[in-house]
């Protein structure tokens, strides 16, 4: 039974990966990537890593890919021409293509080294020992303990990186005039309990929303990238 599930999921993984690069319409490419990630989650389940599988679906299929779908659905028509542009014969295109092939080759070699190095060793083994109960291999408690003890520094660096990415996105959006055209809003401690622009009755009736806040709300709607960035941090 597990072999059947493995082959179904593996076919899904490979078909999804091929679909990402072969499909012409970027929207379908993104959907292929989603199916690839979900199939990968099934493989994680077969490896008794339910936590990793759930996180895979929640973070990648649920958060990251949603942004991709969002963007591609908005600008999908333009992005469709990228493939056609690369098909041209100018020298710049040829150089880009050579570079792409070289980098792709490097990545392939690196992945093969990593895969063959660990995979060939694992073929003879029996996998992780399996015990039922809490705090055994693959359970959330076990992973959490590892993250906060053995891999603490890596964990902190990764979260710091994501924080930098989020701050960077806000800075970039600000420089392009997306947000921050208006003067900084004056924030008093009261606003912590009742932030402006959250649709309180007083705002609606008295029009208490200052112009700066109203502008910020609208600007944020037009430039949603900065708003949705904290997803990555999650």
């Amino acid at each position, binding site marked *: *039974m*597990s072999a059947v*599930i493995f082959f179904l999921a593996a076919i899904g993984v490979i078909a999804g990966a091929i679909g990402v690069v072969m499909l012409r319409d970027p*929207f379908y490419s993104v*959907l292929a990537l*989603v199916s690839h990630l*979900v199939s990968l*989650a099934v493989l994680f*389940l*077969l490896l*008794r890593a*339910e*936590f990793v*599988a*759930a*996180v895979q*679906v*929640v973070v990648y*299929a*649920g*958060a990251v890919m*949603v*942004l991709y*779908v*969002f963007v591609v*659905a*908005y600008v999908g028509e333009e992005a469709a021409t990228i493939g056609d542009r690369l098909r041209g014969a100018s020298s710049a295109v040829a150089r880009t293509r050579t570079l792409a092939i070289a980098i792709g080759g490097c990545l392939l070699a690196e992945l093969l080294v990593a895969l063959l190095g660990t995979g060939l060793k694992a073929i003879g083994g029996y996998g992780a020992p*399996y015990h*039922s109960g*809490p705090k055994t291999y693959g*359970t*959330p408690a076990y992973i959490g303990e590892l993250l906060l003890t053995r891999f603490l520094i890596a964990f902190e660096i990764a979260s710091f990186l994501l924080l930098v990415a989020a701050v960077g996105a806000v800075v970039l959006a600000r420089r392009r005039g997306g947000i921050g055209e208006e003067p900084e809003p004056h924030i008093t401690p009261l606003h912590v309990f009742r*932030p402006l*622009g*959250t*649709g309180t009755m007083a705002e609606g009736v008295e029009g208490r929303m200052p112009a700066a806040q109203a502008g910020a*709300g*609208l600007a*944020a*709607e037009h430039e*949603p990238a900065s*708003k*949705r960035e*904290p*997803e990555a941090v*999650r």
Partner: protein
Amino acid sequence: MALPLAEVGYYEEWWVQILKGIVIFAVALQLVPIVLIAERKLLGRFQGRYGPNRVGPYGMLQPLADIVKLLTKEQFRPTTSAGLLFALAPGISIVTAVAAFAIIPFGDVQHIGGERVGLYGIDVSIGPLYLFAFGAIAFYGIMLGGWASGSKYSFLGAMRAAAQLISYEVSQGLALVGVIFTAQTLSLTGIVHAQGGMWYIVPQFVGFLIFLTASFAETNRAPFDLTEADAELVGGYNTEFGGGRFASYYFAEYLNVLVVSGIVTTVFLGGWLLPFGVHPPGWVDPIVVLVKMGLVTFFFIWVRATLPRLRYDQLMSFGWKVLLPLATLNALVTAVIVVVSHK
């Protein structure tokens, strides 16, 4: 041969598990029309009118008439739609809703005819994460439906859904973190057992409020039903759907309300436990859970009849500026309290 899929403490025979799968689907299928008629009757009462009262006694057969009407309608689709995805999208919605329903525990492990049977579909060790994983996939049902319709109202509804579901899922997850810290387990039956002393609605009241609020957005219910705001978007993502496909969306929406009610019941309202140390026999457990779920669903309907719909930018700023900081603060405070009290 035991499946290694998501270790769930299998002590049940395979046929028990298949039976449970069928029973869960049957229960879900029966509960949805009840919620449908309850909502229409209650909305009528809230608005000072009768509500449906023509089909059957007190109009109780109205959902049946609706379902027959929807299923016998012609299947149409716009010429601009993307065929396969258009047909697939309602299916994704319904499958994820039913799958999420499987983890709601209706009772403790019972001894039925010499077999130990847990009154739930599966008791996954990752508990709420399973729910969020299927919630994440459920988003594609709405998104693909809106996109594949090829109409602008559907597209706007789908885009709103994308931003809304994503931002409220964060708060919803963080609100449960406090509970998980307190219970020290992710298993939903474990969380219910940990509430033996006191239901988590008392120590985790802030988390309860945040979870409930975020759930309104997550299930696209008023006052956060902007993905299908009929005053602005005709019908939002399901504008172009008719007949059985629309029925699928409708079914999924109400089933999601039931799932959220079930999760609120399990996580905050003590699941099958009764207050004041009353320990009824095992067969009472599902009734207790259903009654509590009914109360939460009633609250959902009550809110729909009471509150007006928010504006879209207000919805987003409420999610990010109020709910998310509150949920984070709640998780932090709970973590400190748990560490201090366990010393």
